């Protein structure tokens, strides 16, 4: 997946009602800019793919595995889509996120490094090492 010189980042686009109140001309510009941005990143080899997500989904939670509708469509936090980036470093991922055409209209872009190893597994391994060290001491 990653090499020694490149790292992977996920951009999560939050706020899926940014189009409310925009004129048709403004909207056309944002979606055209967005498509051009995605095409350019793919052509530059910096974006391996991306997808919009359907607004209505389900949220599963709890010991009883309850299923609820969600997330709420008109939420600033709701994730509306994502890009998968392969770039040099975090700074490059942030610079790309800053180019998102929806930012001007209230979108928020979350930039997250893709981890090699699950953080829970990592913590479990560190915990076992500490326990072993304590047992030896």
């Amino acid at each position, binding site marked *: *997946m990653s090499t020694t010189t490149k790292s*992977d980042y*996920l951009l999560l686009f939050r706020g899926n009602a940014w*189009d409310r109140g925009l004129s*048709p001309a403004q*909207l*056309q*510009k944002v*979606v*055209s*800019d*967005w*498509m*051009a941005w*995605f*095409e350019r990143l*793919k052509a530059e080899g910096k974006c391996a*793919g991306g*997808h*919009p*997500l*359907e*607004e209505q*989904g*389900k*949220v*599963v*939670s*709890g*010991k009883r*595995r309850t*299923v609820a509708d*969600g*997330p709420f469509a008109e939420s600033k936090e709701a*994730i*509306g889509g994502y890009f998968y980036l392969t770039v040099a470093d*975090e700074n490059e991922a*942030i610079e790309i*996120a*800053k*180019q*998102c055409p929806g*930012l*001007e209209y209230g*979108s*928020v*872009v*979350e*930039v*997250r*490094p893709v*981890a090699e*190893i*699950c*953080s*829970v*597994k990592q913590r*479990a391994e560190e915990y*076992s090492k500490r*326990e072993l060290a304590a047992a030896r001491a």
Partner: protein
Amino acid sequence: MLLFRGPQWDRGLSTDELQQVMDKVITWFEGLNERGKIKGAQPLGGHGRMISGTDGRLVVDGPFTETKEAVGGYLVLQADSLNEAVEVARSMPTLRHGISVEVRPILAECPIFQRHPELVRRPTKDATRAEPALTEMAA
């Protein structure tokens, strides 16, 4: 797409308990993989940034992974229906430890085009390449 929320569910579990849960998670994941249900899956690192404002002038640390809402990883599932995806989500072993799983259908095209049928599907500059952009996103 399954989004796993609440990445710090392991707090307070003993090593033995955690080992048992992780064994179940790995078995769950491998079972799905063997059935060809997984198109991609990754855990996400804890240190991220939130970018907002015109030209992305606001850059702050986040999200706080201590929160139950923070996304700790994702799985792109090959499912025949939303119901099947929900059933897979319901079988995730860490649900009983406080995570939640958001199940979202992946779209071929941005829902903006459904809400605004008057919009033309064209990128700003590269007009020579007619209309492939958002449909390719589903490829």
